[in-house]
């Protein structure tokens, strides 16, 4: 039977099968030994190490810790603030690193559950703190200039760049979730850095100078998700 005698559907099926065979052959021939991407714990350790060294260098060189930081950590609600931010930061960093490789829908839910719960806890805690601070001492002179905005950006730029660099070697099936988790992680660690360096404890100050810079970065960077975080 010649091609002219065959029904059009059969001809199409044959052509498609031939295309798949040719593609299989091409992929097989172009295969080369590949360097496997690091496991999630290894990537996490690498990222934490880079971020810690960078932040420590910043603290040593230009932005010192606040006076009596250990006293504040032991005696005020600052320790709780830092603790929930740390759990949120580590959880979301782990989620971001996990999402750099193909992840199924049910696994996505498991991976992002902890960071999302921690975001809810953090928001409730921050709102509570803002109400208490405002009732106790009113609004402070929040419009006075504080360098926290600039500091916040300096603290997070390298950790975020390191995450984006690690993501370049991955192939995500959820680039927007990956970006969102990276932003939460960046926000959490930036928040901790500012809480440990800034002398001003008032919640409204924290909202304007510690929270808004990260919201701004997040909103702008959302436009570049596909460029920042490689999808499959």
């Amino acid at each position, binding site marked *: 039977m010649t091609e002219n005698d065959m029904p059009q*559907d059969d001809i199409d099926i044959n052509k498609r099968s031939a295309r*798949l065979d040719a*593609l*299989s052959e091409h992929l*097989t021939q172009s295969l080369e030994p590949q*360097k*496997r991407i690091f496991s999630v714990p290894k990537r996490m350790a690498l990222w934490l190490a880079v971020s810690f060294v960078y932040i420590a260098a910043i603290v040593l060189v230009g932005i010192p810790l606040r006076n009596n930081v250990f006293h504040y950590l032991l005696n005020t609600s600052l320790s709780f603030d830092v603790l929930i931010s740390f759990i949120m930061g580590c959880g979301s960093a782990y989620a971001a690193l996990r999402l750099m*490789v193909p992840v199924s*829908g049910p696994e996505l839910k498991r991976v992002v559950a902890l960071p999302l719960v921690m975001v809810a806890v953090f928001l409730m805690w921050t709102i509570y703190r803002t109400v208490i601070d405002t009732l106790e001492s009113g609004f402070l002179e929040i419009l006075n200039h504080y360098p926290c905005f600039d500091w916040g950006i300096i603290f997070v730029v390298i950790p975020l760049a390191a995450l984006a660099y690690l993501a370049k070697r991955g*192939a995500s099936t959820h680039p927007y979730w990956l970006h969102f988790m990276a932003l939460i992680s960046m926000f959490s660690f930036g928040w901790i850095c500012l809480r440990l360096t800034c002398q001003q404890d008032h919640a409204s100050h924290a909202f304007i100078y510690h929270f808004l810079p990260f919201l701004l970065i997040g909103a702008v960077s959302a436009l570049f998700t596909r460029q920042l975080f490689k999808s499959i």
Partner: protein
Amino acid sequence: MVIDKSAFYQNWNVLAAQAQSGDKRAYQQLIKELIPYARAVLSGALAHPEWADDIVQDMLISMHKALPTYDSARSFKAWVTTILHYRKADFLRKVYASKSQDNQSFEDMVEKNAAPHVTIGDHHAEYTDIEKALLSIPDRPRAIFVLSRLEGYSAKEVAKIKNMSVSAVKVSVHRTAKRLKEILK
């Protein structure tokens, strides 16, 4: 012959790990086994069965690029199925986003998109009625209606072709549609 499915899929983990170290024979075997699996997963999930092979192609290319991200301690089947679903969603998004369907006449669209098992013969009389009703509309509004509703031109484009304002085009199309409804009642 009974095939032990779990052993069969376990073997994919081994083949994928071998492929990562550059074993072309293992990779060829893996692809050979993956194609029918992917087709089976997609079968019944698509409006057009012929899309399946396009999606399988996309999946193979993505899998090839993403191979370094596969962790041999995990299930290869789950990993590759995730890629397959991602490619399927991406493919369907592109298909539905494309405006190619807007530029076809209604009859062409029906002809092209009808599944092979669907017959449109019963509706032929209705199309003839519509054609007759259209012929009863004066030339100029009919031409505007055909350009806008059947050939897929936007109101702006029709306005440019007919040298009239966009709002006049919209009014004309609306009136013609209303008139056709009355005729076809």
